[in-house]
């Protein structure tokens, strides 16, 4: 006789029956785009405070910019809110004529006042993205003078100090701070004098092709089509972005057709799907580089011969062939691949014997002890492991200190490190200055200068000659002379052995389900979903 009362058996049977009811065939709705991605870096949607590539993609669909980079040819700038633009002869004033009849999602007309106010707001709030504009000499105090509406349809941007107008245009086409906000709607939600900052963290007030319906941090972001969009309504009715941090879950879901787009998958999972005919891969080149950074605050790395030795102790080819597929492609220059001014790779290879000779010359024939700080995630940790092994071949005993991005870059900002395996570089601007300013330029090497946004300062690499050349190249009006100047900078940087040694150009791989059509990922992360549809 059983000791189980029949009730238990019935409950168990019921659970098992419900558990095995097959689900409907997994397909996403035909009029919705379902995106799976990690949202852990999505902290604020406010264009003045938003950092990271993910938020740029979200905001590119909620807001508009004056102009955009062409997806197929990023060097080409196309009109968006600005119908046309003009650069003054002295190259200090850019005048934009706005497209007539554009309205925000609220119904308010979009005017030059909104454009000027949106950019002034970034400087007045002085949040994460203000540094983009401060680099041109704009400040909270001069913003209203230099960023102004001439009339309802004309916006004028006057440069406070000489720069290259092409660089400024690129910033306007790519920076997440360059989205145009509905001033009236934002000010209706202003608290004290925050210019709507608290409200815009989780809301949007734009003119983009999609309206933000809901954003629950680390959960889901919902957008629906804006039928009054000036460029015509989007083909899909709704976009759902779901926070998914686990790569294998993303893989299973896109394989089953429960996702249309999967982003942020690990290299092994991407490789596993490469021959799946239901899924396509799109590789997008980003403006940032994977690098090995040496702190010249440490006497050992202040010696040029030691930096040369470290440069010869990196297995560039091995790392790029085994670790970097789906993460990056080899690049040994500070400029992004594809820029006209970029010189071909110098051809550095792992050369332990040469490195030993340089170390001996520098007085370290037996090597030395040091540390490598690195993010505890691929590909950073794999690069660090490779570096640790090759440094050991020349007697350098490096211990690896892992941490979060916050800890690794925090230490770098404080100039408190020996070696860092990291990632960084210019923005998405297709201009050499953007990368050189971030990775090489360092106008004041004193600790108290605290130029922590310059990675040159963080590594304490200080070359007055290179600073001068970078400043001169930025304002050089003749295109061919400017090109030559940027090439000269790369040669001199090579000779002076920079403290940041580039290894690889960052790439992102996006997985797209087979029936999704006209999804074109943008290298500037401003991927727009307006023309995406499904072929079924």
């Amino acid at each position, binding site marked *: *006789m*059983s*000791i*189980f*009362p029949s009730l*238990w058996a019935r409950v*168990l049977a019921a*659970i098992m029956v*419900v*558990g*095995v*009811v*097959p*689900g409907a065939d*997994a397909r*996403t709705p035909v009029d919705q785009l379902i995106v*799976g991605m990690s949202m*852990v870096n999505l*902290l*604020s949607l406010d264009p003045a405070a938003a*950092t*990271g590539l993910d938020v740029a993609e979200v905001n590119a669909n909620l807001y508009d910019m004056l102009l955009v980079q062409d997806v197929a040819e990023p060097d080409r700038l196309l009109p968006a809110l600005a119908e046309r633009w003009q650069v003054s002869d002295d190259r200090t004033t850019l005048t934009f004529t706005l497209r007539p009849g554009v309205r925000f999602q609220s119904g308010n007309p979009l005017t030059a006042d909104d454009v000027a106010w949106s950019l002034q707001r970034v400087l007045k709030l*002085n*949040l*994460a993205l*203000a*540094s983009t504009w*401060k680099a041109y000499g704009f400040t909270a105090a001069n913003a209203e003078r230099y960023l102004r509406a001439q009339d309802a349809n004309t916006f004028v941007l006057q440069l406070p100090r000489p720069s290259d107008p092409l660089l400024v245009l690129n910033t306007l086409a790519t920076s997440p701070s360059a989205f145009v906000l509905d001033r009236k709607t934002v000010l209706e939600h202003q608290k004290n004098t925050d210019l709507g900052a*608290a409200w815009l963290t989780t809301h949007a007030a734009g003119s983009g092709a999609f309206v933000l*319906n*809901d954003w*629950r*941090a*680390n*959960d*889901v972001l*919902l957008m629906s089509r804006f039928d009054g969009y000036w460029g015509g309504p989007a083909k899909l009715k709704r976009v*759902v972005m*779901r*926070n*998914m*941090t*686990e790569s*294998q*879950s993303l893989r*299973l*879901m896109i394989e*089953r057709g*429960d996702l249309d787009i999967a982003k942020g998958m690990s290299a092994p999972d991407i490789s596993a799907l490469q021959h799946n005919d239901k899924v396509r891969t799109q590789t997008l080149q980003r403006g940032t580089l994977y690098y090995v950074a040496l702190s010249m605050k440490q006497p050992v790395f202040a010696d040029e011969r030691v930096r040369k030795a470290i440069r010869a102790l990196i297995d560039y080819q091995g790392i790029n062939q085994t670790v970097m597929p789906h993460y990056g492609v080899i690049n040994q220059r500070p400029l992004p691949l594809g820029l006209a001014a970029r010189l071909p790779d110098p051809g550095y290879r792992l050369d332990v014997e040469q490195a030993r000779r340089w170390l001996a010359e520098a007085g370290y024939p037996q090597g030395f002890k040091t540390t490598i700080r690195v993010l505890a995630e691929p590909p950073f940790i794999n690069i660090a492991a490779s570096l640790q092994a090759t440094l050991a071949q020349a007697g350098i005993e490096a211990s690896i200190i892992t941490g*979060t991005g*916050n*800890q690794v*870059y*925090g230490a770098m*900002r404080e100039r408190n490190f020996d070696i860092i395996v990291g990632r*960084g570089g210019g923005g998405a601007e297709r201009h050499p200055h953007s990368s050189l300013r*971030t990775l090489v330029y360092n106008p004041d090497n004193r600790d108290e200068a*605290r130029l*922590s*946004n310059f990675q040159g300062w963080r590594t304490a690499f200080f070359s007055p000659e290179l600073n001068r050349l970078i400043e001169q190249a930025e304002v050089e009006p003749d295109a061919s002379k400017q090109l030559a100047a940027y090439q000269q900078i790369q040669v001199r940087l090579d000779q002076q052995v920079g403290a940041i040694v580039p290894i690889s150009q960052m790439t992102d791989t996006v997985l797209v389900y087979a029936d999704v059509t006209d999804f074109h990922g943008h290298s500037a992360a401003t991927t727009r979903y307006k023309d995406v549809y499904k072929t079924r």
Partner: protein
Amino acid sequence: MVVMTASALGARASGTARRASTVLVTLLGLLMLTFFIGRVMPLDPVLAVVGPDADHSTYQQVYLAMGLDKPLWTQFGLYLNDLLHGNFGNALLTGHPVLDDIRRVFPATLELATLAILFGVLIGLPLGVCAASNQGRLGDHVARVITLFGYSTPIFWLGMIGLLVFYAWLGWAGGAGRIDLGYDGLVPDVTGLLLIDTSLAGDWEAFASALRHILLPALILGLNSVAYISRMTRSFMLEQLSQEYIITARVKGLSRRQVVWGHAFRNILVQLLTVVALAYGSLLEGAVLIETVFAWPGFGQYLTSSLMLGDMNAVMGCVLVIGLIFVALNLISDALYKVFDPRTR
């Protein structure tokens, strides 16, 4: 009689006051410990807000706005003061008040944990009873293997394998998330519990989708509770089954089922209450790994993400909620003791 009632009331009041003060001191200690540990962690909440490339003036502005320039005790005092006024502060991660966030993420965990503990109880109790009443025989060995599996299998691995087999291969289970993505945002949010909200909305397709999504993670999460509850049940039952009153009952001619369930099992109910309450409490803290594998937007994920950002407002709010959960479960267990054990009345 009147004097006795007054004294009983006085004793009860003093007992309640003692209990309330214990709870308050516990929660304060918990908050203090969390706050100071949070502040010594090598995480910079300012960098989380401004990003790694912000310039120094922006960094300083946010640093001051967050009050991080003040001494630690002042910061803690200000936090407590806000707390007393019902202000838990805003979360860095979401920009929302922490309480609103917790109200949003907690139902997801509550729904999952409740189903998991139901599974744990429905399987674990009979398994434990079966093991005890078949000590050393096949039933006991089978129960041991099941509990060993529940204890020793990494939940992350089990989650991945579960998804692969029941979602990708067989198509029985829903994938990651609480519901098919196409339904996201379409079901009116009444309780935050999707099974209930979809029922209230009468949207049975959405209900079926939510059910398919929750069953697998709940079963996997419940497996650990099955192991814990069944082992404890077995041990309590063995103790009871060796008592003389059990032999007497058998001699009197009662069936084995009546002896096991009607006598021995009833006597372990009070002990089991504590076991189940503790297991439920740990599930309500949030199961970070299972929430990660199944992209479950619950309390565990919220707490972990906040911790990684150094977002102390959110972390402290969560710690307080966890503390309150355990206090509430203790109080409920105490109340239920009186129902099941007349001696404690």
